[in-house]
């Protein structure tokens, strides 16, 4: 019976793993719907390019208008309990909360118990833990606040390679970008 339980558990894990891989290919709306079914609490107008919300997505809460790039991982429990063999039943959890209007660059890792405010930018590859105040740009491992969002806004608005192409059709955008960089 014990073997059968373990086998069934393993099959369920494999099925979930395949589902998550397929979900990565789905549309943004479909992916968010599926993640909500798994318990993720997420607001409106979000872009989510990851499915890595740990085995406890119900411990993650995300506000409105948040973009999460590929490879971002939300960790809601501490897997290191594995080695403490005298406490074989032990788990340690840490809910994650993210405010509204924030952006996560590619391949960030958000550790258990992290709270990120609104209007925040998490730089690519950052490993974030603790409390990140509203209006912060964070970067690094361990991630630290490197500037307020208002300062980055000024830098980007005035950036020499700023082009207003985001909502253009791909062909039109490509032509403008190629021209800007002198690529014929």
């Amino acid at each position, binding site marked *: 019976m014990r073997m059968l339980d373990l086998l069934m558990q393993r099959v369920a894990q494999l099925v979930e793993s395949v589902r998550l891989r397929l979900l990565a290919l789905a549309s943004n709306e479909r992916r968010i719907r599926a993640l909500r079914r798994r318990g993720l609490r997420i607001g409106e107008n979000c872009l989510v390019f990851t499915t890595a919300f740990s085995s406890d997505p119900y411990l993650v809460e995300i506000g409105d208008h948040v973009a999460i790039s590929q490879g971002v991982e939300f960790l809601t429990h501490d897997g290191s309990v594995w080695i403490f063999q005298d406490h074989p039943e032990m788990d340690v959890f840490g809910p994650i909360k993210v405010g509204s209007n924030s952006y996560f660059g590619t391949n960030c890792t958000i550790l258990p118990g992290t709270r990120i405010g609104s209007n925040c930018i998490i730089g690519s590859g950052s490993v974030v833990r603790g409390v990140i105040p509203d209006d*912060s740009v964070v970067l690094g491992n361990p991630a630290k606040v*490197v500037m*307020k969002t208002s300062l*980055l806004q*000024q*830098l980007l608005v*005035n950036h*020499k390679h700023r082009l207003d192409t985001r909502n253009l059709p791909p062909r039109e955008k490509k032509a403008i970008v190629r021209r800007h960089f002198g690529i014929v």
Partner: protein
Amino acid sequence: MDVVQEIHDYIAAEFTPERGSLAPDENLLAQGIIDSMGILKLVTFLEERFGIEAIDDDLVPENFASIETLAAFVERKRNG
């Protein structure tokens, strides 16, 4: 050398080597002279050279707008 001159020399050498000098009130952000990585380098320079510590709330456009505002920021931090 005063603070304005030291900050000027650092920014001119680091961010506008082809241009040479900069006006103390020239808007560094509006002119696109410094980018986001530049801010990190500039903060490190200010902290190490002037013995100050920039906290999160210091890292705002008002302090980084020009050489003059940067120098004023350094003086405020130095004077506690």
